[in-house]
């Protein structure tokens, strides 16, 4: 593919809008066939990074190479090799399904002899076979997203950039969409995907956690959970929750305490020793403890732990 063998390679990438630094010295690489997730809250710099990688925004400094081409120097060569799905649905509402597909097949110069085959494949992938004549604007959200993906990959690009492809889509469609992503990756396509859904991040081969333009952690979901937690995780179900979290934040041996749904997650140095101690601590302070046990961390715990540490620093 290119010299260093990476499909996407980013070095010290910076993007500033006036005084605001949207992307702050980012470094990352993705390999062929990898599903690389970009996880972070809204406004963290995910879309800006993806737009730079697609040659749509000029970086302020640093370099980014996609499919071996520098995005700032050879944006057109980059565009030949990528499929891009922007955050906002951006097909034409007033065109029929088939017309959108034909339009993008034309733009990507898909060879005439395979156009019909590729369009048929995209329709099947999107679950829109037999619905070619429907007006795109009338499709439900999940179908629109799958059609947008179909349009973006008609030319079978080696790298696909998906910017929050599943936002605003129902859970079942989201799952179907991730199946498509893994199917493409299985065919050797590099999929670069942003999301702010923690549970989706678990589907990625590798992840970068991004916050305020910086990558705060990078690795496989498993690695991140192991590496980033500076202790062990406890689940505490108790009442009243509000008072408990205030008490636990000051309790000895507790590194962090946060509300997760209707329970608390605590980070402690040693789970085995902490459980009886905390049970006692809470009991004497008139908090009713229903359950307290060690649990494996989720990415959300990792993210909270990482960003909390940053804020204290």
């Amino acid at each position: 593919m290119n010299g260093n063998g990476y499909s996407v390679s980013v070095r010290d990438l910076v993007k500033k809008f006036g005084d605001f630094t949207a992307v702050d010295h980012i470094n990352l690489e993705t390999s062929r066939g990898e599903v690389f997730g970009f996880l972070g809250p809204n406004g963290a710099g995910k879309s800006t990074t993806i737009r730079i990688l697609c040659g749509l925004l000029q970086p302020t400094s640093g370099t980014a190479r996609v499919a071996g081409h520098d995005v700032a120097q050879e944006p057109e060569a980059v565009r030949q090799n990528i499929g891009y799905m922007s955050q906002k649905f951006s097909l034409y509402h007033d065109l029929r399904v088939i017309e959108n597909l034909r339009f993008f097949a034309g733009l990507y110069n898909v060879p005439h002899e395979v156009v019909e085959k590729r369009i048929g494949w995209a329709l099947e992938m999107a679950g829109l076979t037999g619905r070619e004549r429907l007006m795109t604007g009338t499709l439900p959200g999940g179908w629109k997203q799958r059609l947008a993906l179909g349009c973006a990959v008609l030319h079978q690009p080696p790298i696909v950039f998906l910017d929050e492809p599943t936002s605003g889509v129902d859970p079942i469609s989201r799952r179907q969409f991730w199946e498509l992503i893994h199917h493409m990756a299985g065919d050797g396509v590099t999929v670069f995907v942003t999301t702010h859904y923690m549970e989706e991040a678990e589907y990625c081969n590798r992840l970068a956690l991004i916050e305020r333009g910086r990558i705060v952690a990078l690795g496989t979901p498993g690695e991140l959970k192991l590496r980033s937690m500076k202790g062990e995780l406890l689940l505490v179900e108790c009442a009243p929750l509000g008072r408990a979290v205030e008490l636990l934040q000051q309790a000895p041996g507790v590194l962090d305490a946060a509300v997760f749904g209707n329970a608390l997650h605590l980070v402690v140095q040693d789970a085995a020793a902490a459980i009886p101690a905390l049970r006692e601590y809470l009991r004497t302070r008139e908090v009713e403890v229903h359950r307290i046990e060690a649990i494996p961390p989720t990415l959300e715990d990792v993210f909270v732990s990482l960003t909390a540490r940053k804020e204290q620093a």
Partner: protein
Amino acid sequence: MSWRRTFAVARKELVQIWRDSRSLGIVLVMPLALMLLFGYGVNLDTKHIPVYVFDREGSRQSQDLLKRFQSSDYFDVVRTVDNYAALEKAIDSGQARIGLVVPHDFSERLRTGETASVQAIVDATDDNTANLAFGYTDAVVRGFSQEVQVDWLRQQGRPEPKPPISVDARTWFNEDLESKAFIVPGVLALVMSVIGAFLTSLTIAREWERGSMEQLISTPVTPLEIMLGKLAPYFVIGMLNTAVCAAVGIWWFEVPFRGSLVTLFASSALFMMVVLGLGFFISVVGKSQLAASQIALTATFLPAFLLSGFLFSIEQMPAAIRAVTRVIPARYFVSILKSVFLKGSGLALLEGELLALALFAAALTLLATRSFKKKL
């Protein structure tokens, strides 16, 4: 440059025009509406001026004079009144443009060879019409007075006097002196400005607004392909509209067409490129449909209407405004249209105007392609 991509963009654009009722309305209805509006509605000819008459004498001779007004195309004697106040009221209320007062001693003075005078009160709110009305009145009275003089001399047994000088006028180009022959060809420039600049000003802005531009520029399509693909349908539509408007002008409004169709369509194509380039440029710079359409109307339709010589003669404008009209492309096209229709001028005679249009077209096309960047 890929023809396939250009064609893909053009086809998509055409389908979108077809599905967008607003665009389709402008394309199908607006040209004919403008044509009918200006062909019927705007009439600079001053004919059938309403006249109220207060004949204080009511003699045979005063009636003869009034008959002359009646038989003229320029006047309609609406009513005869019997007091001065009624005349004043008619002018005040706008029912009469001219009030004629024939004095009580009209025929008596004529009989004795004295000068009889007729009073004409002219409503000069619209100075142009008032001037014309006054001129026509003067001509009618002068003709009558000449006849009276001849009669009188004949009665005296003297020979008829010969006027020392007479004007032998030939009207060229617009022989019937009809303003529609002068206005209708210019409507083509208006129609093309609306189709070319106004409609195209929306196309790029619309894609930015709807977010489809982001997807479009992430593909290998080049700015030139986007521009050509987007403008091609409007070029074809604009030329078809030109043909329809020319046909309506020639066969329905019976405006003389003395030039060649080649000259008409060659110059129309050139002007179309000017307005399309301008529309595209405005669309790129405007970025929102509202802003772009307003800029487009201000930059093309208004100048085409006011500063092109379409209705208002450029020679009559103050020097400063006259200088401004030089940078209005429609000015050159309107001048070409009037020459092609009425004078039958060929390409060679229109060299200067065509050159000006070609320069505008080249400059605007360059500006439009340069201004459009495949960046967010």
